[in-house]
């Protein structure tokens, strides 16, 4: 059936359409660097989406939880075996993604008789020195990008660009700045996704009003208050001030209460 090249291309195209559909209702993920380290942020309904991978590596993901778990385990296995056989310094995000994860995701995507991975991954790496932090994002087809100051995952590249555009104008100096900017950026992305979803379902009146386009802080905070009532705020930090080799820590409710801006409270955490 797919032995003819154009049919294979058509099948891959269909698969792309299918995968795009799967991410429409996914929660965006935001990663930013700040003085304290690297902050990852998202909101989820029960299943966590942020994970520790190695001493200075953390992962944020979108997609199917079972696929995300499978790839997370692959990453953990690669990182720990490499760290044991060589050294923690040899476990880098670049090596894990370029020579491990991305080829596996690409292969699954192009093998049209098998199921693809329904995932988008953001890998954050805390540098040995400030200014050396980095991010890698991998799309469901195995394409990856390297970024330095911040990185985002969202349903479409258009939404990701909108989030990046908003994030570019935010102050990211302190941890509180980073938490505030991340959660607002998340709101920008989630609102854009929801708008696209509503438009796709023919609810044009619900998505194209001026309020849906606004990115002023008050509008975003009002939106976030509604989201927080039904979702869990997840924040994890690769903390460069933590003693010892493992730098990952999840931010707990009490710490988030002091960091979240504008009276937002992580009530469901």
């Amino acid at each position, binding site marked *: 059936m797919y032995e003819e090249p154009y049919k294979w291309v058509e099948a891959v195209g269909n698969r792309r359409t299918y995968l795009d559909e799967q991410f429409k209702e996914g929660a965006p993920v935001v990663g930013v660097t700040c003085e304290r380290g690297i902050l990852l942020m998202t909101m989820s309904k029960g299943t*966590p989406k942020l*994970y*520790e*991978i*190695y*001493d200075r590596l953390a992962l944020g993901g979108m997609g199917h939880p079972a696929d995300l*778990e499978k790839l997370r*385990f692959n990453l*953990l*296995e690669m990182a*720990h*075996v490499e*760290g*044991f056989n060589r050294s923690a310094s040899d476990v880098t995000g670049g090596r894990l993604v370029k020579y491990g994860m991305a080829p596996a995701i690409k292969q699954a995507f192009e093998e049209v008789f098998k199921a693809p991975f329904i995932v988008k991954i953001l890998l954050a790496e805390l540098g040995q020195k400030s200014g050396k932090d980095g991010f890698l994002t991998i799309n469901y087809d195995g394409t990856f990008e390297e970024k330095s100051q911040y990185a985002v995952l969202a349903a479409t590249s258009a939404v990701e660009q909108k989030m990046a555009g908003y994030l570019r104008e935010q102050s990211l100096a302190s941890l509180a700045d980073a938490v505030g900017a991340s959660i607002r950026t998340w709101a920008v992305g989630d609102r854009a996704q929801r708008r696209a979803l509503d438009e796709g379902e023919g609810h044009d009146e619900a998505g194209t009003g001026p309020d849906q386009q606004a990115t002023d802080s008050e509008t975003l905070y009002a939106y976030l208050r509604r989201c927080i009532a039904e979702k869990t705020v997840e924040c994890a930090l690769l903390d460069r001030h933590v003693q*010892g080799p*493992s730098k990952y820590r999840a931010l707990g409710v009490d710490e988030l209460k002091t960091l979240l801006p504008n009276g937002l409270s992580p009530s469901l955490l």
Partner: protein
Amino acid sequence: MGMQSDFYQLLKEQGHVFGVPSQAPRGQELTTATTILAFKYRDGVLVAGDRRATAGNMVMYDRTDKVLEIDRHSVMAIAGVPATAYEMARILEHSFKYFRRTQLQELSFEGKLRALSKLLKDNVPAALAGTGAVVPIFVGYDFEQEAAKIYFYDILGAEFEGADYAVSGSGSPTIRGILHYVNTWGEQPLSAMPEEQATVQALRLLTSAAEFDSATGGVNREAGLYPVIKFITASGVRTMPDAQLKPLFETKVSRHV
């Protein structure tokens, strides 16, 4: 199917071998390491070790670290063949991290003890061949029972809980008696001692071991070499810096030797 949480098993599947017996050539002395101790003090457990590694009569190294931090709440102090002991420590360190990161929860204290027992059991052939004997002390904070605990082992992997203290290594017979005496008839039991007093006690014990055991290194003030002393409490593992050991040694220990 099922998801792996056992890093040691993963290593084995990747071809890693541990505990293989091999015969040392006749006349070849293996490097070993020497006096380690742990006792409960007022706030948790103190673990200490001298710095000397020897091969027969030869002093191989005087800066050995025998009190190895395995994770934020546990340490393994080593006596025996350092090559095997360091390999065990690396496996344990990665195993605990791997468990935490895959299962999204800390490995229980009992699970940590079991992991070390398993390594020692797999190491029996090498230990009995005379090329890989390790007799460690494991100390960690047990969050289920809210207490820091001490366990010591034989070379076959049997684990024993040290109610008040544990010792291991060639210098241990000397200090075992002292610990019993101090704990039973001293002004106060070890478990009542505040941190500074416990530290002084540890320095005196290791100095006594070095006095009678050539394979235990004493304090070398000229080179600024002091024992490694760590504290395990609910808030984690902490190392006493040399800058704090130096004045304690000079005022509370050296005048007595």
